[in-house]
């Protein structure tokens, strides 16, 4: 029983952290049909930014360091939009290829700039909680809580604010939104900023839980793509449900059958869903 509870607790918490990264990916895809491979590098660069601002010589308070990192990530996100994706006219294949290239370039440059030694952001809430034999680090709970808060904030933003409604309008029908006076370019900028901010917070959380090195964004991004594909590209609700599902599956398979099987099972589930329902559980047909 304790083992089962441990599996569920660990899985849900990890799933929520992956969810935050995946939300940034699905937001851009939903609105622009852009698969942003640079997202993982934004996660990594933000974690380094929080480390150097908050832990390094500047020693800013964590919240301030994270705000600065989020602002910097937003700027980098918009630069990526203007330099990488806009010249490609947001063409899905071209953006896909240029995103992969940029991602490798940023990662390789980061090894040269930041050096080989891994570092970490100290836990904001240190210690471990023991709930009747089920252990979970306080920092993990804090990170998961923050991810939930941000997911709710994103939902409220998209449904109850003017820019959020504009984003949904562009997502549903770009031409009709244009006829209503909504500037799709402005919406794209907003989407890139929000996506980058989610990446920045995700980076800060991952950096405090799993350490920082130039490769740190790679696995969460891969997981995000699996989550987004299972949940349905562009679907916020689908992403949340798929993230929790993948978190639980990883935890269960990894604990019961060994770590290596988790990825195999993730991909098996992904393949099954793509065969049975190519647009994902809650997604829509991209060609429409």
């Amino acid at each position: 029983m304790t083992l089962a509870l441990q599996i569920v607790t660990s899985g849900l918490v990890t799933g929520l952290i992956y969810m935050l990264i995946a939300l940034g990916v699905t937001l851009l895809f939903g609105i622009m049909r852009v698969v942003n491979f640079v997202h993982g590098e934004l996660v990594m660069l933000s974690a380094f930014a929080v480390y150097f601002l908050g832990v390094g010589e500047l020693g800013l308070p964590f919240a301030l360091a994270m705000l600065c990192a989020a602002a910097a990530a937003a700027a980098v996100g918009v630069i990526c939009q203007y330099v990488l994706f806009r010249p490609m006219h947001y063409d899905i294949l071209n953006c896909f290829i240029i995103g992969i290239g940029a991602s490798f370039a940023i990662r390789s440059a980061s090894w040269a700039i930041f050096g080989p030694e891994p570092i970490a952001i100290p836990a904001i809430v240190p210690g471990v909680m023991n709930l009747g034999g089920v252990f979970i680090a306080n920092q993990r709970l804090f990170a998961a809580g923050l991810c939930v808060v941000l997911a709710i904030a994103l939902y409220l933003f998209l449904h109850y604010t003017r820019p959020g409604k504009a984003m949904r309008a562009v997502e549903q029908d770009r031409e009709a939104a244009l006829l209503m006076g909504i500037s799709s370019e402005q919406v794209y900028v907003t989407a890139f900023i929000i996506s980058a901010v989610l990446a920045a917070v995700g980076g800060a959380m991952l950096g405090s839980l799993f350490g920082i090195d130039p490769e740190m964004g790679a696995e969460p991004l891969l997981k995000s793509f699996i989550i987004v594909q299972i949940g349905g590209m562009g679907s916020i609700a689908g992403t949340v449900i798929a993230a929790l599902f993948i978190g639980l599956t990883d935890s269960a398979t990894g604990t019961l059958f060994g770590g290596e099987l988790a990825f195999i099972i993730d991909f098996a589930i992904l393949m099954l869903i793509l065969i049975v329902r190519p647009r994902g559980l809650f997604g829509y047909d991209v060609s429409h």
Partner: protein
Amino acid sequence: MNVKRRRLLLAGASATALVATQAHAQAKVIAVGVSLPLTGPGAATGITTQRTLERGVELINAEGIQIGPDRYTLKLAFYDNKYVPAEAVTIVEKLLADGTRFLISLGSGNSVPVVARTTAVKALQMSYASGKGHLTSPDFPLSFRVAPTNETAYAVYPWLRATYKDVQKTGHMNPSDEAGFTESEDRRMIAEKNGFTNVANEYFKRGSTDFYPVATRLVNAKPDLIDFGGTIGRDQSLGCKALRELGYKGKIMLGYSDAKSFVEVAGADAAEGTLLFDTLVDPQNAQQKELQDWWLKKYGPPFPSFAYSAWDTPFILAMGMKKAQSTDPVKIAEALRGAKWDGLYGPEAFGMKSVYGIDTSITRAIPIAVIKGGKPVQLTTVPWPADV
């Protein structure tokens, strides 16, 4: 033509000849291909090795390698194998096709797949890798392993047995690749030979983020000591952190790491008490101090202790060339098998014929450190066992 003009022409011709001779002397360069993970999950170790090799070769080239009347220098060509065996094979195929006959390789997953090919073309391969019989065997007489890896267990486990009487059950955690499988196989065998009972043997994907699942399995097996074997870099810190967060109270032992980075990422509380095999915390002799000072001056802190392990290789190669008085890899390998020298760690040798049937695996004393009060502290140095 007057005398003055003739002298001028003569001087010009002499100068041209001198320049040509010097150019010829400078042309005696020996190409050494280096296949390392410079990006990807092994990058921290790869970059450390690259920087250390560059410094070593700089010092060697300042003096040159005298072979008969000729002076040779080494020229390193680095390639990023990303810790992907397929990349490593492509790199080595290219190097061999270009005529390179000296290879330095890091990581067992990158070294084992190429050893048959380097042996076939009689190229000398020096690997920082586990891989035991897959790299060290009479079938591969030109393959040398230049860092003690899985074999450290031959020295460390008898010391564990004598020092920690309460440790009876051992668990093992390794990456699910060639290095991990080899390390696990050897360490379990050596642990058993020393009277320990193996209760867990777990694998994870190198570069994983979440270690809770594998740590949960290990904790449930209730080992007194968990040996991280071939786990390197950030994986060590995350594995240790997950184990402690899940309530594991036993001992953890790991190696091939930079102790200070390990503590920073794992956290001081989680890292406390961890045993670090083959880890030098602070320089123990003038040569080690010189290397550390050079690194700190050039790259700043932290100094990665793996640089000590990476240091000797180009000097061993240069020693082999001088000893063989040849640039022929076959003759150099012959000179190196069973060779003894004074390295960065003191007396070192190529040995282990008793295990592998050939003296091509490095043997030397193994320094051991422990994390105490959040800081790595040198604990002891275990001598290499006489019967191995």
